[in-house]
């Protein structure tokens, strides 16, 4: 137990100097007042999709590189909103995603010792509409203070808990991993628990302690790390509930768009099937983007293929058995087919509107 306590609270630095000051950022933020205001002892930021809060570095009274942490207190976050700190050093852009929890302590390394090299320092508050179609542009986040400080002035446990309690939102790519590889917030916990487990195992091997004690150690290590995992899952419940209420099966707004377009294309193809009863195969021209693949998915009742190369399918089809579907920017091929050599005046435009067009070989 002693080993666990040491491992969990161990700090790489040994100074604990409260005399160093912190730098409140509020006076240096440049933002439209209607999106950022103060009431009920908290600052509130309205997030209409994306909100940029520039930090006026020229007026800062202290050297930025003196600070190595950004701290937000009493942070009332939303599961579908993320704050990042962004800056540029010698044309290299850096971004740090801030921890999503009530007392958010975020280590910052500006990657330079020269304050003049830090440019375009700003906070970006982003809505994450990746899942669900119920996103409101009225969302807002609140906090009591936001300031730059030094990690050594924060208690090690508070810093650790800020990392470990960071909320991991569910994303489209979540099935491939629990956390994003660029934001491994559990790494320090794993170091500490791993050290404890290894120390305990060595004690078992060297001092021949009771096996049950070692097993209890493993169990506690597992439960400790699982606590943060399960608590993040519980928070995901609210995220999922908000994103997919009313049992709707659409993944997100892009998917909703593709379904709307699929309905329009279906209606048009059904009409054309009377005109060309022998044609039963369709080619959607375009890349394997999320939009195109979902469009193909919504058109699955047709015998439809997708091909990323617009020229290849036209050239490789030897007869007039296909109808080609071009959507979005590709509609220009149908508007002015003569301008495109590869179309070679060999296509007949069957339908064209602002959303999609249908072609077949002459």
């Amino acid at each position, binding site marked *: 137990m002693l080993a666990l306590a040491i491992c969990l609270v161990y700090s790489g630095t040994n100074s604990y100097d409260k005399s160093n000051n912190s730098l409140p950022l509020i006076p240096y933020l440049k933002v439209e007042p209607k999106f950022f205001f103060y009431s009920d002892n908290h600052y509130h930021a309205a997030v209409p999709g994306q909100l940029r809060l520039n930090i006026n570095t020229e007026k800062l009274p202290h050297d930025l590189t003196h600070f190595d942490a950004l701290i937000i207190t009493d942070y009332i976050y939303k599961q579908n909103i993320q704050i990042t700190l962004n800056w540029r050093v010698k044309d290299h852009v850096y971004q740090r995603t801030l921890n999503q929890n009530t007392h958010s302590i975020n280590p910052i390394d500006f990657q330079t010792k020269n304050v003049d090299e830090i440019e375009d320092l700003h906070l970006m508050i982003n809505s994450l509409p990746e899942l669900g179609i119920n996103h409101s542009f009225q969302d807002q986040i609140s906090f009591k203070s936001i300031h730059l400080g030094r990690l050594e002035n924060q208690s090690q446990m508070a810093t650790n808990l800020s990392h470990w309690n960071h909320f991991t939102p569910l994303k489209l790519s979540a099935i491939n991993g629990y956390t994003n590889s660029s934001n491994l917030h559990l790494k320090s916990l794993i170091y500490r628990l791993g050290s404890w487990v290894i120390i305990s195992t060595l004690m078992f091997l060297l001092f*021949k302690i009771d096996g049950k004690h070692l097993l209890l150690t493993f169990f506690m290590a597992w439960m400790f790390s699982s606590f943060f995992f399960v608590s993040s899952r519980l928070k995901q419940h609210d995220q*999922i509930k908000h994103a997919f209420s009313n049992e709707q099966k659409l993944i997100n707004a892009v998917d909703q768009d593709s379904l709307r377009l699929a309905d329009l294309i279906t209606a048009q193809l059904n009409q054309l099937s009377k005109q060309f009863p022998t044609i039963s195969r369709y080619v959607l021209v375009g890349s394997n983007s999320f939009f195109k693949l979902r469009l193909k998915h919504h058109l699955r009742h047709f015998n439809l293929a997708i091909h990323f190369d617009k020229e290849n399918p036209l050239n490789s089809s030897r007869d007039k058995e296909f109808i080609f579907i071009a959507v979005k920017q590709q509609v220009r091929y149908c508007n002015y087919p003569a301008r495109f050599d590869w179309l070679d005046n060999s296509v007949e435009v069957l339908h064209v509107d602002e959303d999609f067009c249908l072609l077949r070989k002459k």
Partner: protein
Amino acid sequence: MIVLLGLAYIIYFLVLGAGFRQTVNLLIKNKWILETKTEFVSHAFFQGVFFHVLLFNTLQLFNWSVITILIIIILILVAAILLIAWHASSISSQLSFKWLSPPTALFSLACACALLIYWNGHMLPNIAWDSWAVWEGRAQQWVLHGLNTDIHDWDEWLLNHQSIYNHAANYPDGLSLIYYLPMLLSNDGFAITYVVNLFAFTLISMLMVQRLAKNNGTTYLQAFAMIALFTTPMINNHLMIQGYADIWMAMYIMLLLLTLVDCKESKRIDTGIALICYLFILPMLKLEGWIWLLLFAVAYVLVNLWQHKKKYWITAFTLIFAFLFASNVINFHFPFGDLVINQQRIVIFNLIDTPIQFQNITDQLLTSFLWQNNWSIIWLGLPFLMVTFLTQRHDQAYKVAQTFFISALLCFLFLFYFTEASKWALDLTAINRLILQLTPCYLFLLFNMLIKVEHFHPEQKGP
């Protein structure tokens, strides 16, 4: 309602599987033994899934209407029920029932874990990219265009007017066929299959803890193993976000090893047949299933050879053969593809054909194994598992299981470090999912090793 339909689909698998087992017992004139309730239900269920995939793969050969397919299914179900009833009544005097209830506390724990995951997962639509595009996507294509419609990729689709298109047409049909039936009968087919997925994993967790119990693991250790199984993030992810075949692969690999242990213990033919079923469903679920199947066969042969009197001669002969093979002196050419492994290229039949090129994926490997989440703690046990594999005596079945696991690990490390598969490691997609496929098997071996630790007292000479 969805939960009830899910239960109905589970019962369908159970009846199919139990009927399949009884048919096998009748054919080989075997005595019908029901072990514990959990084991009977689990094996009936997983053999039911195997038989379902096999049956629908066969039905795909015929141009039959949906009604005909449904009538065939109903007839098979009725036949299975009658067979089970008749067999049970006619040989009831010989039945060897061991109606041991699974420990209620552990069963409740498994159900609680599954329900917690369901609490989040049931609200999700199909968000897994490859699932709606490929696995579930092909099931929907069959529902709309007919079960026997061929699905081809671009080049073949252009030539074959009757086929329909899917960019991953070469993927095996197994998972899509599991989705097919509920999708054919209901608009909530995806949600219904979700109930089945969680039930299947609950059975696997119960089978694992029962094997640990048989090996003298205490209830506390069993509970720990079950919690670890459900809270390992990648497993938990695939239980919450359904749609990929990897969790089914993981379950069948685990089942394979547990059945192997049963088979060596009981020496019964029907258990051996179950083992073969589980082995052959692997390539029906995912392409790498062929690799796991071959590795399992290699592990089995190696362990048996190692117990041979002339094992050193055999080892020397194998090494010389491997050297000649890798030096391009010997190549194999078969109708189903070549077998070539040398410094330039690796060709394994029609499954793999890739140039050999080194790609450093160590960072991705460390991220996958260690830094992402709490499952890193279990991987700290890997060196100890390796050491005990070499230093301690094990039953033959456990030797095969450990040889399989270690060779699978080495094999996928080789593929990711030295072949074009490295691109799937660099974006942390396939590497995580391959690790997932082996994780339940690893957890079982790890907790089996911990049984010895649990029973170690300071008075003993060594752990």
